[in-house]
Structures are given as structure tokens and as C-alpha cells.
């Protein structure tokens, strides 16, 4: 009888374990983006030790072929990868959502032109197209970002168009038209606000995918240029030092955890916004 109900922290239903892991991972990498210099004892570009040292207490992830600290370089890598991912997704969503919304809402010849452009772009394998564009623009992370925006916007155009086509047939849109709203107002106030959910979910997951593609481009030498501590080019270094497995381990784990984190969050958002689909 004396037993009291222990105060319990009630976890909301939408906060699933994967979502919590996702938040944890992304939080860590955001922290690294902001505070990498204070999280490590070595500068990423300095040759601070003997070359190709295996992990030790001095160098937790070892040193690379030039004697640079792999842990420090990995953490600093977030400062390149995350801004690139955010930029690429931001512009891809902006361009894609705008064109997709116009295609779906206006229809007719506008729809045809935009969607054929989308079809053509999507008919290339994304990696191949990104390589071709990046190669023609020259190496450098900025050019890689432009290449990835060109590869990515059509996905959002398609998503947004499908969503607009569905929402504009709803009755409240007809009611808005019947009360004398202009086309522009119908689109911005009555259609678009109901179209963002799938775009948001997809954008979250794509943050991880963009990081992966950016690393791939760097891996084959089309993205970051040495000595930038970029994960793709670090793995590339590791591949040429095959028996020093630790050189590629840090950046590899970084890519793995960050992509996993964004995917978990994207999945969680999906379940939160559309609980019926579980």
C-alpha cells in the first residue's frame, strides 16, 4: 500500500527508438560541424605524427599516409559534407518544388515542357549524370554541388506535381475558386500548404543521400581537392593504403552513421505525418 507510482517519463508514441538514434547521430554530426576544432587536439591539415600509425591513445583513429590525425580529419569532414548536403537539398527542393507546382497547377504546355525535362534528366543514372556535369565543370566541392542540384531537382518536381494534382481536386479548392480567389491565391494559400509533407520527408532522407553522392564524387576525384578533409577523398586515400585499414575506417563510419541518422529521422517523420501507412 505504501508503494507509490514511480514518476515515469512517458515517451510519446511517435518517438520511436530509430528516431531517437537518428536524432542522436545527427546531433553529434551537427555538433562536429560547429565545434570540430574544439573537439580534437590536432589540426586536420597538420602532419602531427608518424605516417600510417594504427589507432592508439594519441591518435584514436590512427594517422594517414602523410601523418595527419584521421579522427581530427573525420570530424572536420562534417564541416564540408553537411553544408554541401543542406545547400544541395535546399536548391533542389526550391527549384523542383517551384517547377513541379507550376507544372501540376497550370498543366497543358507548361506541364509538358517541365515534365519532359524531368523525364530526360531522370533517364540518366544519377551517378553518371553527376559525374559528367562535375567533370565538365572541373573539380571542387562547389562544382560538385551544382552537379548534384542538377541531378536532384527533378525528383522534387515530380513529387510536388503529383501532390499538387491531388490537392487541387479537393473540394476546398473549388470552394475557394467559387468565392472568387485568384489562381495565384488558390495555389499559394489553398494548394501548396497541403503539399509539403512528402517533400519534407524526402528532403530529410536525401540529406544523407547527397552526402553519399558527394563522397562518391570526391572518391573518384571529382569533388573535394586535396588536402581538404572530405570523407570521400579520405576513403580514396584509404583504398590506396589497403593494409592500413584505419585510414578509411573513420570517414567510412562517418558516412554510415550520418546517412543512417537522416534515414531514421525521415522514416520517423513519415510515420508521424502519416500514421495510417504503418
Amino acid at each position, binding site marked *: 500500500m505504501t508503494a507509490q507510482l514511480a514518476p515515469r517519463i512517458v515517451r510519446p508514441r511517435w518517438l520511436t527508438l530509430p528516431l531517437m538514434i537518428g536524432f542522436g547521430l545527427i546531433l553529434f554530426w551537427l555538433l562536429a560541424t560547429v565545434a570540430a576544432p574544439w573537439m580534437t587536439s590536432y589540426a586536420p591539415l597538420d602532419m602531427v605524427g608518424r605516417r600510417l600509425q594504427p589507432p592508439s591513445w594519441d591518435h584514436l583513429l590512427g594517422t594517414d599516409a602523410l601523418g595527419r590525425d584521421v579522427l581530427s580529419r573525420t570530424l572536420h569532414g562534417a564541416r564540408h559534407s553537411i553544408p554541401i548536403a543542406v545547400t544541395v537539398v535546399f536548391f533542389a527542393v526550391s527549384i523542383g518544388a517551384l517547377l513541379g507546382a507550376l507544372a501540376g497547377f497550370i498543366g497543358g504546355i507548361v506541364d509538358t515542357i517541365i515534365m519532359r525535362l524531368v523525364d530526360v534528366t531522370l533517364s540518366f543514372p544519377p551517378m553518371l549524370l553527376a559525374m559528367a556535369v562535375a567533370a565538365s565543370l572541373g573539380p571542387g566541392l562547389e562544382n560538385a554541388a551544382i552537379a548534384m542540384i542538377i541531378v536532384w531537382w527533378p525528383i522534387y518536381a515530380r513529387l510536388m506535381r503529383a501532390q499538387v494534382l491531388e490537392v487541387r481536386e479537393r473540394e*476546398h479548392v473549388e*470552394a475557394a475558386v467559387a468565392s*472568387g480567389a485568384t489562381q495565384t491565391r488558390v495555389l499559394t494559400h*489553398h494548394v501548396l500548404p497541403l503539399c509539403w509533407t512528402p517533400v519534407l520527408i524526402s528532403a530529410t532522407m536525401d540529406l544523407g543521400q547527397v552526402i553519399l553522392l558527394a563522397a562518391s564524387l570526391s572518391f573518384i576525384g571529382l569533388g573535394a581537392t586535396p588536402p581538404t578533409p572530405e570523407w570521400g577523398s579520405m576513403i580514396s586515400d584509404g583504398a590506396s593504403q589497403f593494409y592500413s585499414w584505419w585510414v578509411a575506417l573513420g570517414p567510412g563510419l562517418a558516412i554510415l552513421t550520418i546517412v543512417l541518422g537522416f534515414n531514421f529521422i525521415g522514416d520517423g517523420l513519415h510515420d508521424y505525418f502519416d500514421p495510417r501507412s504503418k
Partner: protein
Amino acid sequence: MNAHTPLFEVRDLRVAFGRNGVFSEAVRGVSLHVDHGEVLGIVGESGSGKSVGMLAALGLQPEGAKVTGSVRFKGQELIGLPRRSLRELRGSRIAMIFQDPLSSLNPVMTVGDQIAEAVRLHNPDFSRKAALDRARDLLALVTIPQPDRRLRQYPHEFSGGMRQRVMIAMAVANDPDLLIADEPTTALDVTVQAQIMDVLADLQSRLKLGLILITHDLGVLAGHADRVAVVYAGQVVEQAVVDDLFARPGHPYTRGLIASIPDMTRESERLFSIDGTPPALGRLPPGCAFNPRCHMAQDICRREAPPASLESGHIVSCHFAFTGLESVA
């Protein structure tokens, strides 16, 4: 303005839908009129073209539909009017209420913002604050309690009847002359239906609205309409003052509809219904469109479309209008 110009007059309105170059008419020459402060009921089965016709009259036909005929509002022709002019009329002079009040409200905008939007669309000089004040008055007008609190809520926080009141508030926001209510009570349960009809009838008489009440429920019209037009397969088959229509239904279809209203005073095993289904679009029978379902059909009904006959303001399109009425009444 000429005293004989009706508020809203539809003449020989036709709406056709094309598929592969073949056009089928969903509305086949409808003529109606409504005066200031008058309630016109339009009754017909689902798919008879009553909603499509009224929407098309306001330029809201589905893409690809062909609309011909004449629609005059205060003497101004609406068919062929530029989109911009039509838009300025809609929501200010002519307002509409739709069937399903949940899906007719924007789910991600507060009720207050939506009513304020309806106000500001046609009064751009209204400030947001002034429009919200007007919205609060409108909510009070349609008897929603605590309008101040309700303004900030979203449609999902309202019950079905409340939502329909919001729709009515939006419709009368700019003191329209004509209100078209497309099955305003169909999605509501019976007790709420009566409340909504009371709100509508009250506003109609206070604001001297011309009201077009589209419904498939003759019972709703009996209490609220001044005149009734019965629509079958895209045509008006009978049009009369409401009491006259119920006392002397001239068309066999109207009689069928009236007989289908359950009679609470008599005990019967089966409810009456008209046999068969309305003809599909583009598959009209020759002659009178109602002939396959009509128990009075003769050879002439299968050969010739019946002309409209006028008898003291009571219009009936039937070869055998008013025949056998005594036996029914």
C-alpha cells in the same frame, strides 16, 4: 433597372462533355429564373445535372466542358464573360455553399482567416484586423457561440453542423444578392439539417437573398422553397410554385418523387420507389428521357420528346401532363 428583369435568369443552358470528339450533354437546355428574396428549389436524382448546371452557370465547369445558352445576372450576360469579371462576381454578388462542409474548408487555415480571406478578396482595403472583426460578427450571425475563441480554431475542431455554418458565414460575407446552396444539408444528420435550414432561411429573409437550393430531398423544399424545378436527365421536367407542385404534380416523375417520401401516418410494408435508374450520360432513350421508367408511357413517349406545356405558371414537359391526377391525389 427594369422591374421585370429577374435577379438571375438561365435560358436554354447546355453543358456538354467531350470524349474522343463525341460530346454528350449532361445539361440539356435548362431554363430557370430567381428573383430578389425568392427561394428556388432544384430537385433531382444524383447525376441529373443539377449541380453541374449551376456550377457551369458561374463559369466553374470542369475542364473540357462546353457550355452554351444564356445566363443573366441582373441583366448581365455571364456566359463568355472574361474570367476576371466572373471572379469578381463570385463570392461577392453570387456566393455558393457546397455539400460537404469538412472538405470545403481549408484544413490548414484557421476558420477566422478563411472568413477574413473571403471578406478581403472583395474588399482589398479592409485591414486584416477589420476583416477578422467582420468574421467574428459573421460567426455570431450564423449563431456560433463564443465566436472570439472559434475564430482561432481549425476546421477539424468544429462539428459538421458548425462547419456548414462557417461555410454559410463565408458565403454571406460580402452581402451577396444570390446564394446557391448545393445540397447544403446532405452530409449532415437530420436534427442538424433542420438547424442549418433555419439559419439559411433566416439569413435569406433578413438579407433579402435570392436563394437557389439544390437538393434531392423534396421534404427540405416543402418547408423552405417558393418555387420548385424538378430536373431529370439534364432537363427541367416540371416547374411550379411549391404548394401547387405538391397539390397537383403534373409529371409522372414528380409524382414518383412525392410518393417516395415515407408517410409517417400510414403503415406500409414497402417504401415506394421509382423503378429503374436514370439514363447514363450519352445513352438517352429516344423520345421522352423518362419513358423507360414511366408507368404511363405510350408509343408517342418513345418517339417524340414532349413539349413544355404551361398552365397558370405551372410548366410540365410530358405528353400526358396532369392526366390521371385525380386517382393519385
